[in-house]
């Protein structure tokens, strides 16, 4: 039988390849990254791209990446997770008490990592249960969790800092393997794992389906609530992981450790090319976004931009980078 529904497409192989590259979800964000790098390399007469500085950027971007992945998977659902700062503070305090510290006799070392990830997942799970079972917007559920977890972390710590004294772990997280910061390698590993989960498991497909159209996903037989709960739990676990590395790096745990990290994290998600309305993006987008945001902050420091106008420079570069590189075809409505 004759084929009756035809797809029109450019069959020219070279043109097609360019088109495919351009339509890739990474094209815009990578261009933005290159744009930022170029800007600062010129601005700093090359210092921005020195080996030393790249190592610093990769190191600083690692925690940002892990956090941004947590935010990304929630945003993939079309939901939002405002609890990051609270969950991070909560798990950070736990880390403080579980690692070798001056307050108690615990010294769990690296074993504290899975533990705080589980606790973080628990908080995420509660987020998920609240938003799905009470049927309230994720914005509210996670806002509530943000206050609650932050409040509890203040109570647990009494507001004071818990000094950590695990120099072995600190040396480890500050270390490098073949010149690449260990922490960055860890965050790349997280990117790979999350991407495999998203791309090659049933659960991953259901995340995209829910993000694409929740009603249709439900009609197709997807357990929307379960998907959301699991995603929020994973994001909680990732915040726990980020907290662990922050605490070992700073050798101190304090509820204010996460202050002001929410918006940069969501910014990383968006500049990385994920769509705020859900269904588009993955962990690779998150790491690109984290590199852009970190590179931007680092570049401004290297260029010694006047502190009073750093906000403006940050704003202008952010807007310019996204405006110049965003793929507007994919995201139908730009909200």
């Amino acid at each position: 039988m004759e084929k009756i529904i035809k797809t029109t497409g450019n069959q020219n192989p070279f043109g097609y390849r360019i088109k495919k590259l351009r339509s890739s979800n990474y094209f815009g964000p990578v261009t933005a990254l290159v744009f930022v790098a170029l800007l600062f390399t010129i601005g700093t007469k090359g210092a921005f791209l020195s080996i030393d500085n790249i190592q610093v950027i990769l190191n600083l971007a690692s925690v940002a990446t892990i956090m941004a992945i947590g935010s990304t998977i929630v945003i993939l659902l079309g939901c939002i997770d405002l609890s990051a700062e609270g969950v991070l503070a909560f798990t950070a305090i736990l880390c403080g008490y579980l690692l070798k510290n001056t307050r108690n006799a615990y010294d769990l070392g690296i074993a504290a990592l899975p533990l705080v990830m589980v606790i973080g997942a628990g908080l995420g799970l509660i987020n998920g249960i609240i938003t799905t079972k009470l049927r309230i917007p994720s914005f509210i559920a996670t806002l509530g969790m943000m206050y609650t977890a932050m409040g509890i972390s203040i109570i647990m710590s009494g507001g004071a800092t818990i000094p950590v004294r695990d120099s072995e772990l600190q040396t480890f997280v500050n270390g490098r393997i073949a010149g690449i910061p260990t922490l960055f390698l860890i965050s790349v590993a997280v990117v790979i794992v999350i991407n495999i989960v998203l791309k090659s498991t049933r659960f991953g497909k259901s995340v995209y389906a829910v993000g694409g159209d929740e009603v249709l996903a439900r009609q197709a037989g997807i357990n929307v609530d379960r998907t959301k709960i699991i995603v929020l739990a994973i994001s909680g676990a990732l915040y726990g992981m980020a907290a662990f590395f922050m605490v070992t790096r700073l050798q101190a745990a304090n509820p204010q450790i996460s202050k002001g990290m929410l918006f940069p994290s969501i910014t990383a998600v968006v500049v990385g090319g994920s769509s705020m309305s859900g269904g588009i993006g993955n962990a690779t987008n998150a790491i690109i976004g984290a590199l852009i945001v970190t590179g931007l902050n680092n570049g401004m420091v290297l260029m010694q931009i006047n502190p009073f106008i750093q906000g403006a420079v940050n704003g202008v570069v952010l807007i310019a980078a996204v405006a110049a590189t965003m793929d507007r075809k994919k995201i139908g409505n730009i909200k």
Partner: protein
Amino acid sequence: MSEISPVLEIKGLVKCFPGVVALDDVDFHVDPNEILGLVGENGAGKSTLMKVLIGLYKPDSGSYLINGKSVTMEGPLQAVERGIGMVFQEGCLIPNMTVAENLFLCHEAKFKRNGFINTGLLHSEAEKLLGELSVDVNPGAYVRDISPACKQMVEIARLLWLSRDSGIKNPVLILDEPTTVLLDDEIQVLFSVLKSVKQNASIIFISHRLEEILQLSDRIVVFKDGKFSAEFTGDNATIEKIEENMVGHEMAEEHYRESEQKEPADDVILEVREMSMEGYFDPISFFLHRGEILSFVGALGSGKEEVCRCIAGIQKPDKGHILINGREIRLGSTKAAIKDGVGYIPIDRRQEGLALQLDVASNINFLILKKMIKGFLISPVTEKESAEKWISNCQVKTPGIKTHCSKLSGGNQQKVVIAKWLAANVKVLILDHPTRGIDVGTKDEIYHRIRELAEEGMAVILMSDRIEEDIGLCNRMIMMKDGKITKEMNCPPDNKPTPLNVIEYIV
């Protein structure tokens, strides 16, 4: 007949929505290896019944038996496990996922290699499946990028695969108005597939095109106002009998209100000059007179859709001019087009036609709000009056003017779109599949309204899914093929061409 035990049976089903009784004490059954045609007016409860069958809605009361055993249906996934699958009236493909991903959504487990889902396996199975239905679409294409007809076929492919994969002996496939965006060829492909599937499955087929129902069904059930109204076997049914049971009275002899067709005025209202769009259509020119109904006929890819979308300002032609009353309008701007009196009823009501979250009144009045401004403000009284007038004119069945459009039946949503544009009182109205999913009774009413507006001077460009509708309604028709006009034909009421006359110019 009662010797064969039904695969699926519903007894005493009641389903209410806030303010509406959608299904009122319904008994319903499906026999093995039959194609069951389900018809009824818009809002009769057909889709609701189907959604109850697959567990999407929980009934308020009633019993549900599968193969004689009583069951409770938890949700669509469980329905699929029990061999019941559905193609939804509103479509259910997820736009940000690929065709292959959509085809096997929730069933990826079958495509694992080393514990992970393998995209290659997904794609090869998808290609095979789509090939069977003669759909040529790249399995890796995103659903948001494919045409409505293509989407419909993908959904059918999905159902087909489900019916075989489930391993159930006699699966039940539900198709809720699958043919509204398909062309005749595609429909014939679909029908031949359904007839072969019937050998080991039962099919529930919902449509407002009674000929299709007659052609396909072994048994026909008619619904009215949420109740069972009549049942026919495939042999003893006629369109007239069905219509009578649906509408409650006999329908007029003529189908398209041909007797109300008037000669258009002499003055040209719309002129298209040498308009072209690379890859879609070659330079074309034509006129449209005041009060004229002009049909564009052509297969998918003939360029007629793009021509109309260009006139409406949704797409921008590469070259050419569009003139309204002799004055040139800005190309590629819906705002300019509407300002100059060109309206467009889109094929895709969910995406382009309606705000589902808004109430019926807001949707209907949306285009004429400006006329309701008194001083600075819009009078709620005027809004209410206008909404009520058009609800009644277009026979929209709704619990109230403040009901959200998402709570209306598919056909009633379509009526809201039509009401919205008829109310706008534009000079030129382009109708892209206007009667998609509308029941016969209301169709007649809408034909009447279109004729009335034409008589008052509105010019209409029509693209229908049915050549008969095109022929029946129009004064004149333009046939297109491969981006070119192949023929122009007059269609006076007393001398309408036959579909066969037309088809030779479009394929």
